[in-house]
């Protein structure tokens, strides 16, 4: 167990090292702290002195080590735009993004497992075919378009009037195809503050209503992928000898499906799926842009537009850290679920 942890930790550190080198290279080449500190008016001679004092003429490696030493203490300098430590800016935006990802993850897990399992058990049923059809359409719709369509349907509303409204059925069809709109689609509303700085949307129904459309949009990329993955893995497991043997033992089908098959299905799903959940953070950039959700993604895009290099670098480091943490957690969970990984580092 300890050997496994150390190995995972080493891998995580290696990844963080690579990310930090890239982040530092960006900062070193694109950011000019002198410009930010003193502005345009200061003559070149004074700038040179400052540059020397700040150590900007030191070799790359020395500067990197200084950067890394600060980074370990979560000190990435000041944001050009906000004029406060970048970590403070990020921390202010972090809860919104994490809550969005959490809500989407919940939706994905709650829907993909039953749908995936069902369409594997009854591959020929019309409902399974329907799910598979919807999921391939779902894969083909970019997340920002899903978001826009949701806004049009449920925030703005659509009124359809092709059918004669004066007849009973025409009015009924028009009403059926029209949507009312009115769902909140911009921003977080008034999140409730808990634990001091953490503002949450989970505390009230009103807060949750702001979360609905963004969370569905964000989930819409991964949900079809997960359904297809679970179905494919489950179909493969159902062909295995041990499922046949369980049938030959006279075990009930329900137990075979939901214990024997599902447990084995979930192993590859955890590895692939866990990583995908991590990448949801990347997709928040798109969803947050559409919904003006005040999270890290929106902040990052803003930082790019305003060339706020320290903030960009900090974002990369923090998101890298989130990816590394999710991946390590997923590996740990996999090790706990799969008995053939003895958590000693090598699969038996």
């Amino acid at each position, binding site marked *: 167990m300890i050997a496994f942890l150390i190995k995972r930790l080493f891998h995580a550190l290696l990844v963080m090292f690579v990310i930090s080198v890239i982040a530092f290279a960006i900062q070193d080449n694109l950011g000019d702290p002198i410009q930010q500190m003193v502005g345009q008016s200061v003559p070149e001679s004074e700038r040179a002195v400052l540059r020397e004092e700040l150590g900007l003429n030191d070799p790359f490696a020395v500067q990197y080590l200084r950067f890394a030493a600060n980074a370990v203490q979560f000190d990435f300098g000041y944001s050009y735009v906000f004029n406060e430590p970048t970590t403070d800016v990020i921390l202010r935006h972090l809860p919104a993004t994490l809550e969005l990802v959490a809500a989407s993850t919940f939706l994905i897990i709650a829907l993909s497992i039953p749908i995936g399992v069902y369409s594997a058990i009854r591959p020929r049923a019309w409902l399974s075919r329907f799910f598979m059809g919807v999921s*391939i359409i779902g894969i083909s719709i970019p997340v920002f378009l899903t978001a826009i369509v949701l806004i049009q349907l449920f925030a703005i509303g659509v009124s359809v009037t092709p059918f004669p409204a004066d007849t009973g059925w025409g009015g009924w069809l028009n009403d059926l195809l029209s949507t009312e709109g009115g769902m909140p689609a911009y921003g977080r509303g008034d999140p409730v503050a808990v634990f001091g700085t953490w503002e949450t949307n989970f505390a009230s129904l009103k807060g949750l209503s702001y979360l609905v459309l963004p969370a569905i949009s964000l989930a819409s990329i991964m949900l079809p992928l997960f359904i297809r993955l679970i179905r494919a893995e489950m179909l493969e497991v159902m062909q295995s000898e041990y499922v046949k043997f369980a049938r030959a033992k006279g075990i009930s089908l329900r137990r075979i499906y939901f214990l024997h098959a599902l447990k084995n299905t979930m192993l590859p799903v955890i590895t692939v799926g866990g990583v995908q959940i*991590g990448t949801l953070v990347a997709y928040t*950039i798109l969803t947050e842009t559409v919904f003006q959700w005040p999270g890290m993604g929106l902040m990052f895009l803003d930082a790019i537009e305003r060339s706020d290099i320290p903030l960009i670098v900090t974002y990369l480091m923090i998101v890298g850290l989130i990816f590394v943490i999710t991946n390590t957690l997923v590996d740990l969970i996999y090790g706990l679920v799969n008995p053939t990984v003895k958590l000693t580092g090598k699969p038996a």
Partner: protein
Amino acid sequence: MTTTHSSVTRSSTTSRWERFRDSYLLYSFKRDLIAQFSLAVFILLVGCALLAPWLAPMNPYDLAQIDILASELPPFWVDGSDPTYLMGTDSQGRDLLSTILYGLRVSLIIGFGAVAMQASLGVCFGLLAGYLGGRVDAFLMRMADIQLSFSTLMVAIVVGALFKAIFGGATFSTYAVPLLVLIIGLAEWPQYARTVRASVLAEKGKEYVDAARVMGLSSRRIMFRHILPNTLSPIFVISTVQVANAIISEAALSFLGLGMPETQPSLGSLIKSGFDYIQSGSWWITLIPGLVLVVLVLVINLLGDWLRDVLNPRLYKG
């Protein structure tokens, strides 16, 4: 001598055609309505994109043809439309149908270009990793792992943002097409590398590779002439899916303002430019290009699904 040579080529081409005619691929295609329909729609879309200059009623790149007074006109079936503009106009008064046709062309060029880019990168790295093994393999695959765990979209956004910062907005806009091809190619090569590596590892153990090595062929020759042909079917299958992904990635980058400029819009930047007007009720500027994008990606995905079922190659899970 030349005559014999040409006759040999001809016979080999006919046999190839015959092989295709009798193949399972064609057989299953003939039985699969969805695949036929998808291919038809795909060919139609590609045809429209290629013929855009001739099909489009207007040239959206030509400022002289744009009438700013005719902006935000709805499509023909909505009240207040102008019959000159079948699908309505966008916020700058460009004919939406023409802009979509030109945008489709841009999206397809970038999609296919980016896939060619990532395939050449990924195939080379995958072959190297699989064939050489050892440290090269460990290094390349670790790189691929890191990049994939970061998600290709994230990498594309970061690289795109960097390019924009390095070159400046104006230069970026001018060279947007090749830059986007490069960005998406750099972001997505690991998919290919992993798949190619997996099939190389499977092929490497086989006897014909040993035989080629015993015959004293060079590593490069063995890799490209002997191993690569045997990895083609998985490459072919991921390529279809990757074209769809690349088109979506381009659209996403453009939507974030890191892609095609509005003066030379792709489907993604059209959707973005329309999004600002959706609250004022001009839904068509966003949703009609959006529908075209979805149909394009959907038919490519359906073809990819069909190909995977038929060729059933060993694909890297994930």
